[in-house]
């Protein structure tokens, strides 16, 4: 898993070591608790296609899963739209991927999902699958990935986080939680799915003068201000040598030996 962890996942997931981290029931799921867990192979009913187990969707390429309900007045549509926009901007890995938008609301029908697909402009996209599933199956998937939803009778809405699950060969490789997903954070998720790996990542804190910054957009490192401090000793030494030897002095100015 690569790492716009620096920005995204750390802020949400692995709590900074210098701070708090008790998990509250209303928090989005903590990625670290579910990482690499197996995702239950539940059956889903896609719009306009025969029912299929999830393994049918992740067998040949990675699968991004997000869970929504069509009557959502909150985070679902903004999140879906940001995901849709991000998929258009972020570079596609060679193997490609599918996006599964699964309803967790048992009232949602296949035609509700179809309308939702058209609503965000993904109705004709082969790689975007809108589906429903049996209530029990949705519960299993939610439990295995830390996703939760509760009916709020007062608001007549589900209370739930917005989550993107990145699944490869049936295993959860990344879990992105947040109100909207940017092309950069999607890019880092896709890079993880593609096998990219960063052996280390810094924790979010107010550290000055880091040597390197991980760049989620390129998947590489760039030099940070600390690197400047690293080349400073060598630079000063060479400057000191130049000042001592003063190569710009005219020829013959050197003392003969023995010096006068």
């Amino acid at each position: 898993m690569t790492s716009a962890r620096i920005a995204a996942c750390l802020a949400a997931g692995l709590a900074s070591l210098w701070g708090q981290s008790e998990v509250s029931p209303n928090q989005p799921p903590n990625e670290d608790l579910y990482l690499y867990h197996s995702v239950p192979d539940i059956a889903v009913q896609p719009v306009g296609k025969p029912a299929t187990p999830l393994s049918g969707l992740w067998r040949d390429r990675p699968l991004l899963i997000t869970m929504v309900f069509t009557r959502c007045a909150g985070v679902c549509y903004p999140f879906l739209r940001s995901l849709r926009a991000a998929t258009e901007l972020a570079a596609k890995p060679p193997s490609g991927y599918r996006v599964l938008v699964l309803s967790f609301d048992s009232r949602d029908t296949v035609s509700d999902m179809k309308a939702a697909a058209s609503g965000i402009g993904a109705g004709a996209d082969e790689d975007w699958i809108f589906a429903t599933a049996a209530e029990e199956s949705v519960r299993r998937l939610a439990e295995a990935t830390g996703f939760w939803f509760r009916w709020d009778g007062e608001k007549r809405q589900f209370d739930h986080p917005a989550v993107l699950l990145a699944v490869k060969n049936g295993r959860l490789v990344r879990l992105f939680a947040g109100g909207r997903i940017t092309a950069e954070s999607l890019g880092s998720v896709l890079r993880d799915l593609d096998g990219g790996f960063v052996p280390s990542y810094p924790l979010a804190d107010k550290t000055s003068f880091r040597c390197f910054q991980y760049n989620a957009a390129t998947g590489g490192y760039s030099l940070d201000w600390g690197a400047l401090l690293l080349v400073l000793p060598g630079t000063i030494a060479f400057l000191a040598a130049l000042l001592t030897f003063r190569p710009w002095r005219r020829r013959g100015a050197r003392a003969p030996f023995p010096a006068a």
Partner: protein
Amino acid sequence: MPPSTLAADAGTLRLRRNTMLWALTAMALFLVSTLLGLFLRLFQGNAFPAVEPVWFYSSLTLHAIIMVGAWFLGSMAGVHYLLARYVQPSSTASELAMGGSVAGVVLIAISTLLGKFGVGWYFLFPLPLYPNGVWLPWATAVFFAGLAILAVFWLIWVLDLLRAIARRYSLSVALGWHILRGAKEPEVPPLVLITTVSLVVVTAALVAAALVLLLFLLHWSGRARVDALLMKNLTFLFGHIIVNITLYLGVAILYEMLPAFAGRPWKTSKLVAIAWNAVLLLVLFAYLHHLYMDFAQPRWVQVAGQTASYFLSLPAAAVTIFGVLALIYRSGFRWTMASRLLVCGVLGWVIGGIAAVIDATVAVNSVFHNTLWVPAHFHTYYLMGVVLMVLAFFDHLSRELTRPDTDVRAAGWTLVLLLAGGYGFLAMFYYGGATSVPRRFATYPEETLQGVIQARVAAAFVVVLFGTLAVYLSRVAARCLRAFADCRNAS
């Protein structure tokens, strides 16, 4: 170049006196620190079950600082003396360095022995800021003050030697660039070339040390939260280079002294010039091999670290080793204690270098990093390498200045015992590294109990080493004292 010219052609009385004083200081510190080393190995051999580990770690810190300091200064003194054949370094700078070094070492001794400050000689951030009630709060401040004094006064000496070289040689001549272009004139002795390279690089190391101290202060004062990875990079930039360059200063001495025994010249050839210019470029990056287990360093930095470390061995070591062997082969070489020490020093450098290259391999470092393999390799090229080279200089110069009779047979035995004690002691480090014993453990846990036996065997060898050194160095010291007194009387 006949060997007797070491004393004759260089050296005002003041320079000779200073050099003898440096020799006495370095040898005395060396013996004290060897005793500390013996204490460390005995401690690891469970010889002092009633003594608290805090004494182990503070002695470890002091042992390393003294060894690094004593031989950096010893080799600087040697280079200073020999440089005086070609240029005029300032005796005042050397005397200032002496004063600064004494003050710095005293402060560091106070902080470690009285303040129980035990964080290792390179005081890795942020350990010094976590006393945990073990060492006294003032100890950190005194330690840093001592270090700052050392850095400043050493820098003065380093820059003065550079200034002296610059008075006679231009930068391109001092670095042998005209030889690279194919010119033969002006002649630049290898001593000047190697010293120039070394001094420029040492300047970088001392600046890095100063930066580390500044960043510590910044963090300590709460004005910034300093990045641990940056501090580690800077720490090893400083620590690795200072040790590495001490070795090169020893090699500079070797280049200057060995021809006298071989009766053949050893000039700055094109290959020698290429080699030391390559060192100038590579040595600043070799330190990266200390950070292989920091996965936070990008992969390309690790690749650069291994490549730089590998190829650093090529110019300096391969060119010099071949040069030494070609120089002495069928030369009618004059074997004295000094020339024996020089050649054995080169062999120690080679063996330590082989172990270093193996450890500088990332794939191997994964199971060798911070095991006893690490002290094994640096003790080899220190104790059996540069120390022998610098001792050769002290031995030879003090002999020339006092002209005593040479007892060749006694010298032979001294050398045999010195090598037996030294390599026996080192063998236990290598064996310890290969059997996964971690370095810097006061006592060993049940998984690595083999370390206890190894430490005891090593301690026995250190006793042999120390005994031989005590006898041998006392003879050299007696000559140094006599020479010192002669110089004073004459002036």
